[in-house]
């Protein structure tokens, strides 16, 4: 999904969408008409706002060399780092995502989740085990090569139980996520869930635990030609009540990440 496909969901009475590039009004007008774009595309000819905002990619000649492409002043002069800002109602930035590579664009699903809006996504794949249920899905069913997507991993711990999350003393089994995927699925690290301190009566040591639904998100990109890619997500954990622990367990659920052809 690209920005144009979600404009009707996002550009509502509650939220607005803007794009910013160095294109002229004429270029934007032709592009918007061709693609049916109704959100506002802002024209920053000469990259004056891009410079003022501090978004100019000053390393572009070195970057082009690194990627094995030439530098073209007509295209590359004034390029910003690509990125997305999410503003709250007061205009304060609540999310900022910047990319190193101007060739990348975030998926629409990632943007929608940043705004807290629901959207189509892949069906969750689930597995259940001792004291917990694992659900795994992606924010979209299919992605363009190099588009940033997200694998959503949720471990739902039964009421009355908790699991250990880092940091903890040696010997305690922290929740651990491992992902088995083809090499063409380039992944970020799993985000760590927030835990809170926990102490067992009579014990000196303090632990870090989490209850309820524990969320991990993993950003990824597909290398062209990788999809559909089978991705198996395993979560190891040990669920405990205040007085006793269940046997350590590992749950595995798999999702298929589809690849969209470039248009």
């Amino acid at each position, binding site marked *: 999904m690209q920005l144009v496909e979600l404009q009707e969901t996002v550009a509502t009475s509650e939220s607005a969408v803007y794009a910013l*590039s160095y294109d002229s009004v004429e270029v934007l007008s032709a592009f918007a008409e061709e693609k049916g774009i109704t959100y506002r595309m802002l024209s920053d000819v000469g990259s004056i706002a891009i410079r003022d905002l501090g978004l100019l990619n000053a390393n572009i000649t070195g970057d082009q060399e690194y990627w094995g492409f030439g530098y073209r002043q007509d295209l590359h002069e004034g390029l910003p780092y690509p990125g997305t800002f999410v503003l709250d109602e007061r205009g304060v930035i609540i999310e900022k995502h910047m990319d190193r590579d101007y060739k990348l664009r975030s998926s629409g699903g990632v943007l929608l989740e940043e705004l807290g809006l629901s959207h189509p996504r892949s069906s969750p794949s689930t597995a259940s085990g001792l004291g917990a249920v694992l659900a795994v899905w992606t924010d979209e069913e299919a992605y363009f090569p190099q588009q940033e997507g997200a694998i959503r991993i949720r471990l739902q711990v039964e009421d009355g139980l908790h699991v250990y999350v880092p940091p903890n003393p040696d010997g305690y089994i922290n929740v651990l996520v491992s992902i088995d995927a083809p090499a063409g699925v380039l992944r970020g690290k799993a985000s760590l869930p927030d835990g809170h301190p926990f102490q067992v009566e009579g014990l000196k040591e303090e632990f870090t635990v989490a209850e309820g639904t524990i969320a991990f998100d993993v950003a990824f990109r597909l290398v062209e030609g990788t999809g559909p890619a089978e991705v198996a997500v395993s979560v190891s954990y040990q669920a405990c009540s205040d007085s006793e622990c269940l046997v350590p367990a590992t749950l595995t659920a798999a999702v298929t990440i589809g690849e969209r052809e470039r248009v």
Partner: protein
Amino acid sequence: MNHELQLQPVDFDEVGPNVGDRFPDLYLPDQSGEIIDLHSDRAGRKAIINVHRSADW
């Protein structure tokens, strides 16, 4: 690709405004040529601002 080349590291906290900042005022024409004042156009709504390379290539 020449593997001796390295991408210069970028600290994105130093690139553009950061979380917690008010997004700076923007006055730019949109695709219809109308000058848009970002914050008054938002009219109190949340917003996504997507910064990207040319729409044209």
